[in-house]
């Protein structure tokens, strides 16, 4: 244990995802030796992000205003809605320049181990959007891992009986993978080859 302020910093850093006690200590000592200017800039960046950045009221993407950049853009196609797990997936898909529709960010995937059930995700809001907006196709672009597939399957059941086309990004993405890690070429191909989920009560065995 260290004296007050240093230990507080180590404790706070240790709460960050992917930062263990050892790394927290290393970062803390790095900051201790850093210039005051550098340390202040980091502190300000954290404060500013919390004060100015929020979640889009329509799609839950990261936004610097009431709505995000995509939702505010009048040139986007209102009839196609791409459902993703996280805001970083929006960034990954935008980089491909393959997609011109709108997004809906769920805020994660169904994962009982992490205590995340359907109620913890923005699924009710998605259903409300489908009532109000002229959506003709919902592309489910959750990650191609177990949790993402379970979430896609849950969504397709929820959307059953609605007058929308429901598609899933084509496989070819790495198994157990993260959409965020998928390179742009793979992701573009996945969009072009997306498959209909409608009318399939259960997924085919691959």
């Amino acid at each position, binding site marked *: 244990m260290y004296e007050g302020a240093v230990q507080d910093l180590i404790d706070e850093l240790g709460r960050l995802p992917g930062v263990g006690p050892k790394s927290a200590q290393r970062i803390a000592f790095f900051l201790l030796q850093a210039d005051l200017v550098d340390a202040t800039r980091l502190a300000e960046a954290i404060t500013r992000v919390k004060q100015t950045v929020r979640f889009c009221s329509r799609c839950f993407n990261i936004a610097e205003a009431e709505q995000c950049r995509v939702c505010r853009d009048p040139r986007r196609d209102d009839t196609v809605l791409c459902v993703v797990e996280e805001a970083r997936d929006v960034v990954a898909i935008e980089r491909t320049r393959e997609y011109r529709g709108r997004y809906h960010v769920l805020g994660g995937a169904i994962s009982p181990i992490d205590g995340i059930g*359907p109620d913890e995700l923005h699924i009710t809001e998605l259903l409300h959007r489908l009532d109000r907006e002229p959506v003709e196709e919902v592309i489910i672009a959750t990650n191609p891992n*177990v949790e993402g597939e379970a979430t896609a*399957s849950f969504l397709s059941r929820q959307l059953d009986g609605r007058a929308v086309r429901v598609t899933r990004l084509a496989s070819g993405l790495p198994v157990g993978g993260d959409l965020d890690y998928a390179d742009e070429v793979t992701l573009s191909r996945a969009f072009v080859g997306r498959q209909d989920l409608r009318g399939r009560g259960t997924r085919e065995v691959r």
Partner: protein
Amino acid sequence: MLLRRLGLTDVRSYDHATLEFAPGVTVLIGPNAQGKTNLLEAINRAATGGSHRVASDAPLVRLGAEVGAIRAELETDASRRRTLELEVGSGRRTRTRVDGQDVRRAAEALGVLRVVLFAPEDVAIVRGDPGERRRFLDDLLSQRRPAYAAARAEYDRALRQRNQLLKQARGLSPRARSAASSTLEVWTEQLVTYGTQVVAARVAAVRALAAPTDRAYRDLADRPEAIGLAYRCSAGPLPDDGGAVPAPAEVAAALRGALLEVEDDERARGMTLVGPHRDDLDLTIGALPARGYASHGEVWSLALALKLASYEVLAEVGDRPIVLLDDVFAELDTTRRQRLAAACARFDQVLVTAAVEEDVPLTGARVEVTVEDGVSRLRPRPAGEAGAA
């Protein structure tokens, strides 16, 4: 494929060692606890992503060192040169490089180096719990086709998620439970999807192993009795369609049906009761189950026969594996030594350890393994020179 050169840095009893290998037989000779087995273990670790002796990598690193490195230079059946490098250490992620390039997932390196290892501990495949036999099949299939390792990992993940949900649902009110059951259906579907891939592949492996295991056992055992291999599916017997791989739709239907049957029980106990995590491989010698009835010699011969048969299953797809035999010949009488030696003749490369050189009736390179100043030393013996023993 061939192992051309092996480098070990701070691995078990080795501080720094390199060894060149030729095709054919190499016998590593030395008293026990000098590092013979450690060398085979390191090769196996690089090939399969796991150690046959321990679950964690910590003991693989030499005492006092932080990181151990294994470097294998290989030649594929198509005469292509490849390298596989691993840096292991306790509490750190294993760094794996294939042909000098870092791989993001260790699974991507599966299949680069292919081996069949037989070690005395493998009698557990015959004598041990069902988990030992499941692991034998899973390790074999993962080496055969890396996609299997991925499906197996996804199955485990789906299983953990579904168990967690079943556990949570136990304490819920009837109304909340019915809400949770819509999520449970989704996890059941995931379990069936990946479970089907795992079961179908395991059944295919068992069917492919049956004949070569029987052949190998007759060569090794005192009494040449017929060996039976049957995959026991916790979802109930699968229809035998006579094909190499069972129809996925039928496996899926069997899993789905069995899960439906145990649904109430699963909810009460808060765990998944059907699936490849509860399956077994039934082994019989003559008419009797090998587990519980077989003598030590029979158990040992069957375990070795299963490993020799693994060679055929691996060689079916991709490069022919390198065969590693740890301390095998000492267990056999002269006749069986000759038979095993004859079986080894069809392998491209065989690495054998032995405490007594005369136990191994194989011609090929000899390497002496001794401990000096606390670390293992490798001393290739020039051709034609007789052993000190």
